[in-house]
């Protein structure tokens, strides 16, 4: 029936995280000094798991949808075909493997992304990055190493990095 067909329309697979609309200032008053606007956290999309501020979890994450973290996560996050976003309040102590990783909060641990790692102005990352591309905004904090890998070299580079990590300091 034509009305049944219409009811079956599906949401597009793996939509990108949509940034929340910035609030429009209603009153314009001169400010004594400029105040930096905090970056707007991306809003959770229809196929995105959201870990809220009050959530603290420990363990291994894997799956097939995007993840937005505003809480605390410890362990391993493996979402090879998806985007992991660590929001401004997010605190992650984990190895992160994803297609794309966006950091506005804090990450301690190695990040591996097939496509891109973005560390935004408010982001704080301590760990090694292995990715097809890296963008670090001015003002972000980063301590660790960055290696750019081409498509197809990702797996080999990841295992090499893991074995290198065994031998660090003299």
């Amino acid at each position: 029936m034509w009305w049944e067909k219409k009811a079956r329309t599906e949401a597009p697979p793996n939509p990108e995280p949509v940034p929340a609309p910035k609030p429009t200032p209603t009153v314009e008053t001169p400010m004594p000094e400029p105040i930096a606007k905090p970056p707007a956290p991306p809003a959770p999309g229809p196929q995105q798991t959201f870990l809220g501020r009050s959530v603290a979890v420990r363990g291994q994450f894997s799956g097939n949808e995007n993840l937005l973290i505003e809480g605390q996560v410890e362990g391993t996050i493996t979402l090879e075909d998806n985007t992991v976003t660590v929001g401004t309040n997010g605190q992650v102590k984990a190895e992160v493997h994803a297609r794309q990783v966006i950091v506005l909060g804090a990450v301690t641990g190695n990040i591996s992304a097939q496509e891109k790692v973005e560390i935004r102005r408010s982001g704080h990352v301590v760990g090694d990055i292995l990715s097809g591309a890296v963008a670090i905004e001015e003002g972000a904090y980063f301590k660790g190493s960055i290696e750019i890998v081409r498509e197809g070299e990702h797996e080999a580079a990841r295992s090499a990095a893991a074995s290198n990590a065994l031998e660090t300091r003299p």
Partner: protein
Amino acid sequence: MSPIKGHADRGRSKDAPAPFTSRALEWLWQYLRDDPQPHILDCGPVFQSTLNILLRRGSKIHVGDMLTPLPPDNPTFWAREGKKPVFLTNEFLKTIPPVPVGSLTIIFGWHLLDLVPHEALEALVERLSSFLRPGGVLYCMLREPHLPTGAEIYWWMESLTVLGSTADTKRPFPYPAVTNREVERLVPGGNVKTFLTRTGRREVLGIK
């Protein structure tokens, strides 16, 4: 904690020296022309421009700002119980990011050797050299003895061979200038190349 610096942090003003072509970097990239992926440690503070240029060169980059926490009044690195303050070398060496031994092609130390007390230089250079592979290069900028101030000047890459810098500050260098002979003694093997600049500084390459 030192964030990644960008154009807004550069403080380029009319007092800032004009970017200059670094003969040391020209030599360095020619020396490494056959290395498609040099492994690099930037001792910081790290500029976005430098990161992007080195990543485009195909480098693997280790980042850790060792310069910003170095002011002589930082209590983390000084024991002041005795009559004379003692520099806690081991505490300072902990600021070096974890790097596999013998893996690095280049270490960009910038003004690091000018800002560390002389009694800690040997341990510092020994530790940094341990990270270099054979043939690896320690790049440092050293002030000439006649240049008393500019301890807070920071450098970044405008291109692989052109360096820009912040305006020369009036903060004096805290220790006497490191001589070429001292560098030759510090670098294992003593293989050192020195390039003079017009900014009152020497570019020094210590080759392992």
